[in-house]
Structure formats: structure tokens, C-alpha cells
């Protein structure tokens, strides 16, 4: 579904991603773990070109997203993204947040988009919040709305950039629940997270990133129970889960 070929990303003289090649298949639930500064978020953000790769290719739907001539906006409609800081549109109500892109990009009529939005809001139990502004929601509610905002575009793959890192501990669970449901429905997901429990339970593949490379990967069992890489062993020994 997404094929990453020789992906490199430099920030100035600093090499953040070092020649990564990887394939993400349809239905994969890829969880990316690793120490901070290892390039996890940058890797994720390169997948929909929120960061332009310095070199290399990202093939999605048969086109190279790293190619500047490709209509990136068209492809982003099929790649949902959820941010650490939620980034709900502050000047729009919850309902408008969800319907804005589908209507503006002519994927749906206003009525269709509204019906779909209510259906999604029902799923996350926030139907009664449709007409409030994001400033009135709790962090967990904001993130759940942000997830369904991305889902409203019916994406083929969902990217999650540390979706629970900015949440109060009490609210982590409700967001992970929504993500688990999504995984069970067969959505292709790439998740950068520090929630090792989630990685074990939901992921079918775990990438361990260190110094801009994927230094180890495998099933959750392989990575968590039988880590081979010394840096990964050290990382896991320091993480409480």
C-alpha cells in the first residue's frame, strides 16, 4: 500500500532519516517505537509529505509522493492523519470540523457529509457535542473528534503521530479504544506511540527506530519478548508498561 524506497531526510546538516526502505501492506497495523529524536515522527510525516523527503521515494497508489509534480492534495485525501496536539479547527464547530474537508473537496454533498459526521460522532459517543466549539472539549474528546474528522474522508490509511502523548492519563484509554475499534475494522494504520501496551495488543508489526533507521522490526512478540538489537533491549528495559 505504501512503499518507501531509500527515504532520507535532512534538517540542515542533521540527517534525521537515513536511507529507509520499507513496505506497508494493506491491513497492516504498524506501530513505531523508539527513543525521542530517533526520527519516528519525521518518518511518519514523510509518508504524507508533511515533511518533504530530502531524497528517496514514497509510493502510494502507484505514484511517488516525493515527486513535486504529483498532486499531493489528492493523495492526502486518502491518507488520514491524527496529531499529538489534535489541531481541531478552533473557528469551526465539531460538526464543521468533520464536514469541512469532504464538502470543500466535493467528496460529499453537505447533507451526506452531515449524516456521515453524525454517524461517526455516534460511534465515539459525542453526538451531543456536534454544535460546540473545540475549546469546550476535553483533550480526549478533542482527539476522538480529530480521529473521526480524518475518517470522514474515508481514507485508505491512517497515520497517528503520538496521539495520546498530550493527554491526561485518564483520557488515554478512551482514545486508544477508538483506535482499537478502527484496527479491528481492518483499517491500515501507522502509529507512532509510547503506549507499549497498545503496540503489543493492536500492532501486527512493530518498527524500532534509532538514529534515523529502523534497526529492528517484527511481530510484537518478536520485538518485545525476544529483542535482538542491544539498543532496543536497553530501550525496553527503561520503558514501563
Amino acid at each position, binding site marked *: 500500500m505504501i512503499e518507501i524506497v531509500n527515504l532520507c531526510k535532512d534538517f540542515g546538516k542533521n540527517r534525521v532519516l537515513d536511507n529507509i526502505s520499507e513496505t506497508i501492506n494493506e491491513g497492516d497495523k504498524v506501530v513505531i517505537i523508539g527513543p525521542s529524536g530517533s526520527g519516528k515522527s519525521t518518518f511518519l510525516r514523510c509518508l*504524507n509529505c*508533511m515533511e518533504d523527503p530530502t531524497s528517496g521515494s514514497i509510493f502510494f497508489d502507484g505514484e511517488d509522493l516525493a515527486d513535486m509534480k504529483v498532486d499531493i*492534495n*489528492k*493523495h*492526502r*485525501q*486518502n*491518507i*488520514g*492523519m491524527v*496529531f499529538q*496536539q*489534535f*489541531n*481541531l*479547527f*478552533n*473557528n*469551526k*464547530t465539531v460538526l464543521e470540523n468533520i464536514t*469541512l*474537508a469532504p464538502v*470543500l*473537496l466535493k467528496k460529499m454533498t453537505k447533507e451526506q457529509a452531515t449524516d456521515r459526521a453524525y454517524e461517526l460522532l455516534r460511534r465515539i459517543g459525542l453526538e451531543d457535542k456536534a*454544535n*460546540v*466549539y473545540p*475549546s*469546550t472539549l476535553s483533550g480526549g474528546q478533542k482527539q476522538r473528534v*480529530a480521529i473521526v*474528522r*480524518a475518517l470522514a*474522508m474515508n481514507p485508505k490509511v491512517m497515520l497517528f503521530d503520538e496521539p495520546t502523548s498530550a493527554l491526561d492519563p485518564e483520557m488515554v484509554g478512551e482514545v486508544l479504544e477508538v483506535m482499537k475499534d478502527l484496527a479491528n475494522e481492518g483499517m491500515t494504520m501507522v502509529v507512532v506511540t509510547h503506549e507499549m501496551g497498545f503496540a503489543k495488543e493492536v500492532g501486527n508489526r512493530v518498527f524500532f527506530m534509532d538514529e534515523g533507521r529502523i534497526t529492528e522490526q517484527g511481530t510484537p512478540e518478536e520485538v518485545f519478548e525476544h529483542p535482538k538489537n542491544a539498543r532496543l533491549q536497553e530501550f525496553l528495559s527503561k520503558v514501563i508498561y
Partner: protein
Amino acid sequence: MDFAGKFQVFWELFIEQGAWKRVLSVGLVNTLLIAVLGLLIGIVLGTLIGAVKVMPKYKLLPRILDKICSAYVGFFRGTPLVVQLLLTYYVLWPLMNVSVSSLYTAIIVFGLNSAAYVSEIMRGGLLSVDSGQMEAGRALGLSYGSTMMQIIIPQAIKNILPTLGNEFIALIKDTSVVSFVAAVDLYKTFTEIGNVRYEYFMPYIAMALVYMVLVALITLGVKLMERSLRKSDRNSQSL
């Protein structure tokens, strides 16, 4: 000094002979027209210039536009408003071989001048909107332009509303120079009253009062507008 006599003369002209009608229906109306339309042009044009200023600059077109906008802002902030009025009325129009009334000239020049100042206010307003808002829009597949229009600019305008109020007040007061190009504003109508008997003492005191009341009213209006904006925030919270 014969205050009573001066007052008597002013009263006669202003009230009894009805000069106040011209002050209100021509002077005040033109002053407001120039300031309000000038501000509107300024907001539209200034928003465009501000948006160009905050555009990412790795392509050629934004870089060229940015240079043009910098030159524009440089000219309109670097020369006095009166000079811009005179240049437009006595140099630009004759060069273009067009005849534009002094009132329209004033509106246009005030709009162009205001755009330069509003663009800087707007640039600050745009930069004050969290960058995550743009990222969220782009990640959904919206273009830079539609994210700007739908998400960033509305939030920026809300943030800079009080500063725009100040710009409006400045414009109102600056209209007092439009008589340089023969436009009739508040200043001109009061001067006309003075010209009748070469007695300017009272007319100019009255003029100052009118400007002060005008600015006080606008200040109040901006305050009410701000409060209602904040109230809508609160209301939405209690929903």
C-alpha cells in the same frame, strides 16, 4: 478677548443660518465615507499582502510577489499620506489621462495607504495562529489557499480586531488632510464657516469636539464588538 461675541457669530452661522446641515450632510458623511471605505479596501488588500508575506518562499512566484508587496508597503509607509494624495491627484491621474473626483481619489488613496498598515497587522495576526491549524488542513487534502481562507484568516481577523479598531480611528483623524486635493470633509466645512467672517476661534473648537465625539463612539463600538466576540466564546462553552 470677546468670547461672547465670537460665540454669538458662530451661533448665528452654525445654528440660525443652518451651517450645521452642511457640516453633517457633507462634512461628516464624506469623512466617514473616506474612513470606512478606506478601511474596507485596506482590510481586503492588506489581508492579501499579509497572506503573501507569510507564504512559504521556496517557489519563485511567492518570492516575486513578496518583493512587490515589500516595495508597496515601503512606499506607502515611507511617504506622508498628504504626499500620496497630492501625487495621485496631481500626477497619477493626469499621467493616466483620467479625471477622478477628489472624494474618490481620497477613498482610493486612503484604502491603498491603509492596506500597507493593515498588511503588517494581518501578518502578525496570521503568524499568531497555531501552525498546527495549517497542518491539519493540509493533511486533510485541502490546498494552502483554502486552508488560509477557511481556517487561518478567520482566526487571524478575530485576533487583530482591536488593532483594526485603532487603524480605523487613525483613518478618521487622517481624513482631515483631504482638503489638500479639494475634497470636502469635516475640517473643510468648519473652515468654510470661519471664512464667512474670518473668525475661526469657535469653528475650530467645535471641530475638535466633533472629532473627539466621533472617536469616542468608534472606541465604544470596537469595545462592544470585542465583548460580543468574547461572549460568543462563552456561550459556546455553555452549550
